[in-house]
C-alpha cells in the first residue's frame, strides 16, 4: 500500500452505509481539556525550572481550573467524575486523573509559601519531594493525552507512538512561549536560553509533524484518508493555515524578530500565534480521526 494508491471508500453518509466514519465523540470540550492540560503543565514545568513563580501559578490554575472544568463540562455524568480514577491499572484516563490530583496537591504545597507566605509543616524528606512530584506529574500531564488517544485501536491515525511525543513537544513549546510572554509583561528580560529553546522546539515540532504525516500517508486507508482531509480536504485551511502558517511559520518569524525589538505587544502576538496553532492541531487531530470501514470478510 503506498501513499499514491486510490482510497477505496468515501466518508460514510450514515451508519447504515460502508465507508470511513468520522470520530464525533470527543469534541471541542475534550480538545480544550487537552489544550489546557498541555499548556498549563508545560508553563508550570518551564517556570519551575526557570524559577518564575508567576508562571508556576498561572500554569497551575490553567490545569487545575481550566483542564478540570473542561473535563467536567464534557462528562455525561459529571457528579460521578471520581469514578474515573478507579482503574489506573488499565486506563490512561484514570492514570491522568491520578497525575492531575498529584499535580494539584504538590503544586499547591509549592505555591502556598511563594504567594501566601505560609510554610506548610512538611517533614524533612517532603521538602525536596514536593517539587519532584509536581515536576513529574506536570510532565505526565503534558504527554498523557497522546497516550489516551493512542490507546484507541479503532482510529489508525491516532495509533502511533509519535503522538505522545508530539504532545510533549507542543506542551513544552506552549509552556516556553507563555513563560517568555509573562517575563516580558513583567518588564523583565527573557532568558536567552528559553528563547533558543522556543526556536528549536518550533523546528522540532515541524519536523515531528512532517514525519507523522508522512508515516500516516503510507499506512492503512483510514490513516491515509485522514492525511487527505488535513492536506487537501475538509481541514486543509485549519491545518495548513492555522497549524502550519500561524502556529509555526509566523510564530518562528515573530519570535526571531522579538530578539531584536523590545515590544511587549509582540510577545503577546507570538504567544497568541503559538497557542492558536497548538489548539487547532489538537482539534483537527480529534475531528479528522476516522474509523476503518467495516466490510464483509472474504472467507477464502
Amino acid at each position: 500500500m503506498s501513499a499514491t494508491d486510490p482510497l477505496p471508500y468515501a466518508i460514510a453518509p450514515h451508519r447504515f452505509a460502508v465507508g470511513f466514519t468520522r470520530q464525533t465523540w470527543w469534541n471541542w470540550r475534550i480538545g480544550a481539556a487537552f489544550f489546557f492540560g498541555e499548556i498549563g503543565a508545560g508553563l508550570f514545568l518551564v517556570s519551575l525550572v526557570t524559577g518564575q513563580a508567576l508562571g508556576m501559578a498561572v500554569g497551575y490554575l490553567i490545569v487545575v481550573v481550566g483542564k478540570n472544568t473542561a473535563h467536567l463540562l464534557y462528562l455525561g455524568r459529571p457528579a460521578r467524575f471520581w469514578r474515573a480514577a478507579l482503574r489506573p491499572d488499565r486506563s490512561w484516563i484514570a492514570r491522568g486523573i491520578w497525575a492531575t490530583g498529584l499535580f494539584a496537591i504538590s503544586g499547591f504545597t509549592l505555591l502556598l509559601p511563594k504567594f501566601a507566605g505560609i510554610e506548610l509543616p512538611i517533614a524533612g524528606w517532603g521538602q525536596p519531594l514536593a517539587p519532584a512530584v509536581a515536576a513529574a506529574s506536570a510532565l505526565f500531564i503534558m504527554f498523557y493525552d497522546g497516550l489516551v488517544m493512542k490507546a484507541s485501536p479503532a482510529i489508525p491515525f491516532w495509533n502511533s507512538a509519535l503522538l505522545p511525543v508530539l504532545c510533549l513537544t507542543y506542551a513544552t513549546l506552549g509552556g516556553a512561549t507563555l513563560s517568555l510572554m509573562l517575563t516580558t509583561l513583567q518588564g523583565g528580560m527573557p532568558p536567552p536560553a528559553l528563547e533558543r529553546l522556543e526556536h528549536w522546539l518550533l523546528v522540532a515540532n515541524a519536523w515531528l509533524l512532517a514525519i507523522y504525516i508522512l508515516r500516516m500517508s503510507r499506512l492503512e486507508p483510514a490513516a491515509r484518508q485522514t492525511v487527505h482531509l488535513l492536506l487537501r480536504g475538509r481541514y486543509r485551511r485549519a491545518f495548513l493555515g492555522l497549524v502550519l502558517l500561524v502556529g509555526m511559520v509566523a510564530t518562528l518569524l515573530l519570535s526571531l524578530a522579538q530578539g531584536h525589538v523590545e515590544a511587549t505587544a509582540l510577545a503577546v502576538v507570538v504567544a497568541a500565534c503559538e497557542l492558536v496553532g497548538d489548539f487547532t492541531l489538537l482539534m483537527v487531530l480529534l475531528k479528522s480521526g476516522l474509523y476503518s470501514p467495516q466490510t464483509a470478510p472474504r472467507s477464502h
Partner: protein
Amino acid sequence: MARLGMVIDLRRCIGCNACTIACKQEHGTPEDVHFARVVTREVGTYPATRRTFLPVLCNHCADAPCVEVCPSGASYIRADGIVLVDREKCIGCRACAVACPYMNRHFLERGLLRHGYNGDGLSVLEAVKFAEFEEGTMIKCNLCAHRVDQGLEPACVVTCPTECRFFGDLEPEAGRLQSLIRDHGGKPLLPECNTRPSIYYLDGEPRQA
C-alpha cells in the same frame, strides 16, 4: 467456561433489516440508536451492480478495547463473554465509543429520553423501556442477556427470516459454531484490531474435504 457468540451467514442475508427492527422492539432504544443494523454497500459498475449486506452488532470481543479504556470499570465482560455496561458506574466519558473499532456504542445525550419518536411525549412502550436507560451514559447491545439468562436466543437471531444467524457457545471445539467457522472459513470483522470478536461471518463456499 462458555463464550457466547454468533455466526452470521452472509450468503443468506437479504438485507431486510428485520434484525434491526426486532432489536429496536426488544430494547426500546431511543431515536437513532441501533444496537443491530445492516450496513449496505453497492458494488460493481452499471449495469452489473449489486448490493451487499453486512448485519452488524456489538462483537462482544474477548479482548474488548472498550473495556480496556473504561476508566470507571463500567464496561465489563460477563463470565459467559457478554460485554456489558453498568449504567450506575458509567461517567459518560465516551472513551469506550472512541475505542470501539466497530462503532457499536451509543451515548444517550441529555434530553434524548424526554421525547419519543413522535415528538409528543413518550408512548407506553417508550415509557417502560426508557426507564432502563439513563441520560449521559453509554448503552450498547447486550446480546439480549435477559433473554439468554432465560434460555432464549437474542431477538435478532429468532426474528431472522432467512435464518442466517447462529447463536451459541464458541468454546467447544466440536460445537456447532466452531464447526461452521471451521468448515466455511468464518472470519470476524477487522481482525487487524486484535480484539478477538465473538461474531463471525461466513461468506465463501464450504471447504472441500
